[in-house]
């Protein structure tokens, strides 16, 4: 009886570990659709327009072999409002993209501190979320709503 209990307990633990491990790796996201969903929110000071992927990679200083899919939307230079959704090729590439986003935030802060200082708080409250090989970045005037919208993206994409 004792032996049987131990076997059952170990089996349950193993199942829990496997389920937990698989949960993170099964994350999927349609980068284009996700970006469009975010840009439709009423949290930006002007309409965001889609950026060409080559131009966006250059802007973020991200190598082409790092990215599997991507979608970047920006406003004019009058604002720092921005949405970018990335699917990296692997975990290491996703880390590089996260680093590139951090650099982008710092660079924008430096530039806008003297140009349009009222834009800097948006950068300080920028939202960056990583799940698996996906990274979502959003700079807006309402970081709370942005965070909630990004969370909803994961749920809607992974409940299917």
């Amino acid at each position, binding site marked *: 009886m004792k032996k049987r209990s131990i076997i059952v307990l170990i089996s349950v633990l193993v199942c829990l570990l496997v389920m937990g491990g698989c949960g993170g790796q099964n994350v999927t996201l349609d980068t284009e659709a996700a970006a469009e969903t975010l840009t439709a929110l009423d949290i930006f000071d*002007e*309409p965001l*327009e889609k*950026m*060409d992927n*080559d*131009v966006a990679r*250059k*802007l973020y*200083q991200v190598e082409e072999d790092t990215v599997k899919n991507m979608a970047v939307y*920006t*406003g*004019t*230079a*009058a*604002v720092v409002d921005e949405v970018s959704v990335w699917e990296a090729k692997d975990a290491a590439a996703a880390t590089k993209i996260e680093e590139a986003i951090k650099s982008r935030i710092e*660079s924008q802060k430096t*530039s*806008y501190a*003297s*140009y*349009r200082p009222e834009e800097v708080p948006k950068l300080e409250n920028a939202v960056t979320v990583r799940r698996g090989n996906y990274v979502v970045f959003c700079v807006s005037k309402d970081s709370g709503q942005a965070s909630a919208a990004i969370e909803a993206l994961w749920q809607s994409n992974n409940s299917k």
Partner: protein
Amino acid sequence: MRTYGNGKRSGRYISEEMSYRAKRRARRRRRRQIRDRVIVCFILALLAGGLCFGGYHLFHRKPAEDTVATASVPAITKEPDTKENFFQNTAFIGNSFVNDLEDSGLIKEADFFGRVGLNLDSVMELPARNGDIPAADAVCQKQYKRVFMVFGENELGWREPEVFVSKYSDLIQKVKASMPDVKIYVQSVTPVTAKASENARFGVTNENIVDINGLIRRVAEENQVYYADLHSAVVNEYGCLPDDVGGDGVHFNQKYCQIWVDYLRDTFTEE
């Protein structure tokens, strides 16, 4: 030839033959002399003609200085490019408008040295976006065919017109010294929407824009560079930027970046 029965020739004939041969030699000599004289005359004629031709151009050549002095402002001549290759080997340097143009993705083959807030002071000190060295130095690292300069918006609050002209000239001369064959285009400041002009943020009004464009035109004339009048390409009948530019009423969205690109290509390309 008269011969005896034994094959020998008579003395009289011998002298006649000798006379004939002498005459023949003389005739040949005379022909050679005539031929040689003709050749010499021909050569002398060629030399004389060459000297006359070269001497004329040597003493009647127009000095280069005269040609340059008469062209105070280069006419907006159309160049032997095609619309497809117009922006190859081209650079844009300037303020946030250059960032917007780069971000539009409409001219992937050009290099961009833009930074929000860049002006004719800071261009010598601050790097362009994602750059490491001052933008003015960065643009001089390569030999460009064309360099478009976009300044004036961030200088609308400057009070000294002569300082503006002087600093713009300094930048132009720096670029020219680095790439003597470059074509430089100084671009007029574009209008803003009526609402943005009313706000008059940092001196940005359509009236001030017209004034500074007068200075930019003067910079072009004094430095013998091209004046790219983008202002005329986008201004409406009220002297304003149309409201469909969106945003802050100053900066260009994709639609207006396309108008910008088309204006430059159509104005400065020879078909």
